């Protein structure tokens, strides 16, 4: 799952807009494998944490109804250009990834 997060953070005025796209199957556990007819086990991101200067700016709690390859956008104030933003996710199987982006 290396490199699963694509993130951009753009400062306009005082507000930073963060946009991120995460590669993840987001299996609901209700879909069947077309070939075998077996249920595909649930596999979805449960929590995405975004930090700026060590402070958590947003914690996203997700269920399986978030689309495959999830998209997340939010806004916060208090960042400067060049600041580092960190995003991490953990899914229901305990898999995880994190990435950093520079505020531009």
């Amino acid at each position, binding site marked *: *799952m*290396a*490199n*699963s*997060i*694509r*993130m*951009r953070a753009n400062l306009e005025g005082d*507000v930073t807009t963060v946009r991120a796209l995460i590669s993840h199957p987001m299996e*609901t556990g*209700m879909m069947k494998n077309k070939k075998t007819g077996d249920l595909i086990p649930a596999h979805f991101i*449960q*929590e995405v*944490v975004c930090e*700026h200067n060590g*402070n*958590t*700016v*947003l*914690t*996203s*709690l*997700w*269920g*399986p*109804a*978030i*689309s*495959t390859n*999830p*998209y*997340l*956008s*939010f*806004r*916060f*104030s*208090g*960042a400067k250009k060049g600041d580092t933003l960190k995003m*991490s996710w*953990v899914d229901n199987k*305990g898999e*995880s*990834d*994190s*990435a*950093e*982006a*520079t505020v*531009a």
Partner: protein
Amino acid sequence: MNSLKRRTFLKGTAAISSVGFALGAGLLTPRMVLAAWPKSAFESKSVDDALTNLAGSADLSTNEQIQIRAPDIAENGNVVPITVETNIANIESISILTEKNASPLTASFVLGAGAEGFVATRMKMGKTSDVIAVVKADGKLHSSRKEVKVTIGGCGG
């Protein structure tokens, strides 16, 4: 205009230093994180149960200061773009519920220091349903709803 778009895109991509390291190196451990995930709320089968399990109450007051941007008719129920925006003060969290989904609670965003009343994501909808945005502020639950129609079939679905 297109070449301009291309440049912005590439610049945006270059700005990312994707770390991609796993748990061991970070501060997060799955145990710590999973403890915070409100399992009972996400598994609830009704909006009221989900809210009670999530926020301790299902007592909603309609608030016109909450705007839901979502399509009237979803082009593909697997990818429904939604934006919730509000200027209510002292927001603690913004939650999205899809009334007719088997488990209505779709997402809950807990706002930290400096976060604005704005979140956007894409979600799955099994059928036509009201989408409910619930904003928790000063301990109270404010809400707004919008119907999104989902039709199956054609060449895309």
